């Protein structure tokens, strides 16, 4: 039940925020945004035709990670800003992680995400450093992922699935490319 609720919330937030980009009357109005979120979440469960949009999204993209959920929630309450902090590093790390998981290299990082203590300790350490550097939202997102993993909030038992997901890495990649393109004219001047 919890995985379905979290998936519904995650995809609901993502779709609502995406539509709010083109709807100034919605952006920044928490009450309207909440109503829109409720409507989107309800639509996600509507079986048209025979299959709900949520099932299609979960079948094709899987569940969103807890980190993504925290980022989306922050965006929802704080208005438009960059979804992913450190987009270049995030995109690079995410891409490297996914490429390594494709089975062409002997390094299989995804296997670390099950029981060994290394990855949870690294995640806690990173949250610690981010807190010291004032990146509190990011730090809290990582801690929420650790809590979610320990309490098995998602269908997965792998910590990586609580920290990362393909849509998040795609957004980070898009942002990183945008930043690179946006910087070039400045350097040319």
């Amino acid at each position, binding site marked *: 039940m919890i995985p*379905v609720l979290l998936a519904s919330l995650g995809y609901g937030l993502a779709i609502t925020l995406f539509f709010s980009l083109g709807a100034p009357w919605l952006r920044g109005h928490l009450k309207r945004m909440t109503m829109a979120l409720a409507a989107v979440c309800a639509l996600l469960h509507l079986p048209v035709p*025979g*299959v709900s949009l*949520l*099932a*299609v999204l*979960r*079948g*094709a*993209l*899987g569940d969103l990670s807890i980190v993504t959920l925290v980022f989306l929630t922050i965006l929802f309450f704080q208005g438009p800003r960059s979804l992913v902090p450190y987009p270049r590093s995030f995109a690079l790390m995410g891409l490297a*992680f*996914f490429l390594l*998981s*494709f*089975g*062409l*290299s*002997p390094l*299989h990082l*995804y*296997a670390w*995400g*099950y*029981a*060994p*203590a290394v990855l*949870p*300790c690294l*995640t*806690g*350490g990173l*949250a*610690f450093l981010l*807190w*010291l550097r004032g990146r509190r939202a990011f*730090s809290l997102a990582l*801690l929420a992922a*650790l*809590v979610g*993993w*320990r309490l*098995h909030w*998602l*269908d*997965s*038992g*792998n910590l*990586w*699935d609580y920290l*990362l997901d*393909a849509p998040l890495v795609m957004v980070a990649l898009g942002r990183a490319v945008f930043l690179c393109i946006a910087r070039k004219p400045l350097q040319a001047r």
Partner: protein
Amino acid sequence: MTLTARMTGTARACLLLRTCLHRYRRRTALPLAGIACLTLWASWPAFFAPPPRFAPSPLPVSQPGKTPRLESALVNQPDPLRVHAAAITALPNGQLFAVWFGGQREGGTDVKIYAADYKDGAWSPQRVLATPAQTMAETGRFVRKLGNPVAFVTPQGELWVVYVSVALGGWAASQLNLIVSPDLGKSWQPARRLITEPFLNISTLVKGPPVFFENGDIGLPVYYEMAGKSGELLTLSPAGEVRRVTRMDHGLRSLQPIVLVETPARAVSLLRDGDDLPPHRVWRTETTDAGQHWSPLTQTDLPNPNSALSALRLKDGGLLAVANDVENERFRLSLLLSTDDGQHWRVIHRFEDKESFLRNPPDRNTFRARLSEDLQDIGRMPDPETVARNAENNLCGTHCSWQYDYPYLIRAADGDFHLVYTWNRSFIRHLRFNEAWLEKIL
């Protein structure tokens, strides 16, 4: 030398941490302590996880004095037209349970998972075990088509079926689903999705029978085939949660592992060849730490036409395999024996062999004549004319071909061997033989 230069790395790190903590102490000491405690709580169970140990299956002992016996039957009905990837398991009540997938064509959206029971020497009528719509409703995730199933009884006495489904794309985008029957197939709990891969949870397929661990965990040999192709050992808890995954290889050359446990720490795995480059041989790897690490793959001398094989361990330490022991086609299915843990193999019997047609594919008339000869040895089956018609529809175009593949071999508690495989893309054939028959052909 200054004081800082003389300090060791550890001392420097401590000094840096102290400086940081001092600087941030007032406002952040409590949150940082909270982060440390939370991290410790999250990782705590991992510190005390004991290393895994295989639970070697007790090897059945045949009753002496039995007469050699080889029996044959077709398991499924003529509808649907095409069937594939059968698996079989022995139930504690002495019956057998077989699963396979079938539809108008492999990869079609009409493909369903079918099952049948073997009781008192005969197969029950087939029944539908899972459909795409049912899987979608129960997992809450979109499913377009179904594929390979594997059935087994867990140490807790539950009957499990793990089967492949695809939401988008081909087999490389497969995902695994689990259904559990607490009463050996009378009723089934809703399907649930196994999360096994990080990228959209795609590209995990199943083919081989499981192995078991001493703590009750289940080791399921699976494989990955999106960018790379490699065998994996997926460890599931008795509750069906994924606990661990280890890859047996990386690259593009091997898939569909069969794991043969010897001791609580040691096992050998044989893998189908997926390499484009010859020579096409079955791959072999072994573990000495109960599947946590696997040795580099080596080629055996057993030819393999990029086709699944099945194997099991005998009580004298030998390995018995059923495989297509040719490099390019699946017209031959042989029983093979290895006495050096899977490195070298010798053929001891051919269950199917159509090598004579290799360079001379039969036309329909020749095909029909040969098929009617084959049907005389097939044993219990549906109407022979329908069987022949289905086989012809599945195997004949301009010319006809033969295909015997995807063997799945087990040994029941009474010592008898049971083999199921896809017979000419149209039927699941079941062969039952005993140790006396095996000794006779050795």
